[in-house]
């Protein structure tokens, strides 16, 4: 039956209110109070990252700022996030999934797809496996999960969102028209704000509307994504669930931060870009990669975001080269109409460290080698004596902005195929 998409059995497991559930498990006294896990307001990370069901009743939303949430619910209990604890629970959940299949594709820290097509003869049908997984998560981890069972990844994900908490939803070829088609089109994976707006212009509001539209027309307005979304709406998604471990293939390494105060000028930005580039470069060296492309991510104080990327002359994991390229990208694309709130640097398009490169007549390779050696030495020092044992002079210009160690302190959620 392998390869026959109609017969696949795909589960999508979603740990309900993940951060908040883990916190409430560890603090029994808070369980019945409205609780929100929030970033540190003093560092301007003060938004709701997750909330429990009592807090949801007050209409508190993820991504909302704390003071706004407090207006709705003055007794809201705010707890700081503990990422290492969440990672532990994520790992434990994955260990449970591994008892049923080796095809597990994590999607963020709290969600995963499981292909159990070939496990059905051992453990029963999709619904039975889903119920067992839910029961085990509840018993062994003390939190709850919603599971969607379907014959493709897209519908399985929609299913896990339908009934919460601690429920199994089955979307089959027979019932998907009744269950999926009335949903708003924005519920579909990959339909973001821009696509939704475009759809609205043409009167496409639900997934059913999308399915009913002509594929030719969708191709006309969205290109190949039109075809893909059309097939999603019809349940014709055939993308496989990646085997466990494959998500470890790193496609990019990045760090970003919301700075303690808005960045007002190029000098401020330079500080932060150097800080982030050092961490990105160090992490690339750790994994033995060099990047050929540098990306930046900029969010201004109105929360408008843009991303830009550019090639580097030679594959590199030298922080100053990455920082310079990032600065160039920033200068070329930012007009300083508004101060900057958060910034990110990412290296991508990797080659492995030992890959032979074409040396250039116009680049001083001896100097580059010296820089590489220097950075390896810095890595060694930091590993032995801590991050702050050695720093660039520029970091001393504004301690408030640079007083963080992005490499260790900024846990990047294990997003699929990113590191």
């Amino acid at each position, binding site marked *: 039956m392998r390869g026959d998409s109609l017969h696949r059995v795909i589960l999508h497991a979603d740990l309900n209110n993940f951060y908040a559930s883990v916190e409430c*498990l560890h603090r029994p*006294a808070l369980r019945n109070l409205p609780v929100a896990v929030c970033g540190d307001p003093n560092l301007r990370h003060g938004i709701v990252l997750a909330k429990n069901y009592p807090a949801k009743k007050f209409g508190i939303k993820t991504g909302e700022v704390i003071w706004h949430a407090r207006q709705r619910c003055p007794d809201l209990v705010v707890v700081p996030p503990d990422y290492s604890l969440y990672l532990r629970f994520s790992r*434990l959940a994955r260990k449970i999934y591994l008892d049923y299949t080796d095809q597990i594709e994590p999607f963020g820290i709290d969600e995963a797809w499981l292909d159990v097509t070939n496990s059905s003869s051992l453990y029963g049908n999709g619904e039975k496996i889903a119920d067992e997984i839910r029961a085990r998560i509840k018993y*062994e981890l*003390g939190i709850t999960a919603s599971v969607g069972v379907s014959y493709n990844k897209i519908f399985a994900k929609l299913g896990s969102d339908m009934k919460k908490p601690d429920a199994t939803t089955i979307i089959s070829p027979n019932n998907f028209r009744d269950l999926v088609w009335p949903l708003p089109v924005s519920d579909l994976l990959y339909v973001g704000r821009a696509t939704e707006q475009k759809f609205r212009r043409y009167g496409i509001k639900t997934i059913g509307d999308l399915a009913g539209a002509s594929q030719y027309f969708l191709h006309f307005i969205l290109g190949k994504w039109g075809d893909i979304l059309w097939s999603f709406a019809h349940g014709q998604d055939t993308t496989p669930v990646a085997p466990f471990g494959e998500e470890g293939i790193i496609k990019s390494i990045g760090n970003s931060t919301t700075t303690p105060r808005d960045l007002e000028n190029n000098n401020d930005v330079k500080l932060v870009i150097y800080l982030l580039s050092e961490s990105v470069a160090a992490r690339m060296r750790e994994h033995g990669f060099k990047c050929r492309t540098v990306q930046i991510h900029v969010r201004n104080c109105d929360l408008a975001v843009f991303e830009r990327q550019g090639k580097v002359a030679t594959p590199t994991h030298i922080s100053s080269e990455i920082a310079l390229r990032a600065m160039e990208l920033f200068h070329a694309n930012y007009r300083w109409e508004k101060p900057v709130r958060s910034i990110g640097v990412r290296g991508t398009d990797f080659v492995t460290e030992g890959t032979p490169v074409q040396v250039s007549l116009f680049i001083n390779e001896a100097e580059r080698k010296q820089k590489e050696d220097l950075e390896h030495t810095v890595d060694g020092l930091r590993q032995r004596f801590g991050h702050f044992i050695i720093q660039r002079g520029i970091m001393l210009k504004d301690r408030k902005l640079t007083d963080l160690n992005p490499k260790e302190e900024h846990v990047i959620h294990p997003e699929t195929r990113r590191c």
Partner: protein
Amino acid sequence: MACKIYVEVTARFDQEGSVIPENIIWEDGRRFEIDRVLDVRPAASLKAGGCGIRYTCRIRGRDTFLFLEENRWFVEAKKAQRR
């Protein structure tokens, strides 16, 4: 309400790599010998708040849960016991 108390434990590691707790040493130094381990399974403690490997232990004729959370042991204790 129960609370989470981390305790000192002496344990035996067998050739298979299994860990079998033998004694619990209470905060005040009292030592409780575990007569038998009745059950071992991963489980959450909703009472104390945590999760790990749960050992159901018989101590002086009474069954108690002892949890191994990463590399620390805890028990679900009544508040009064703490004093």
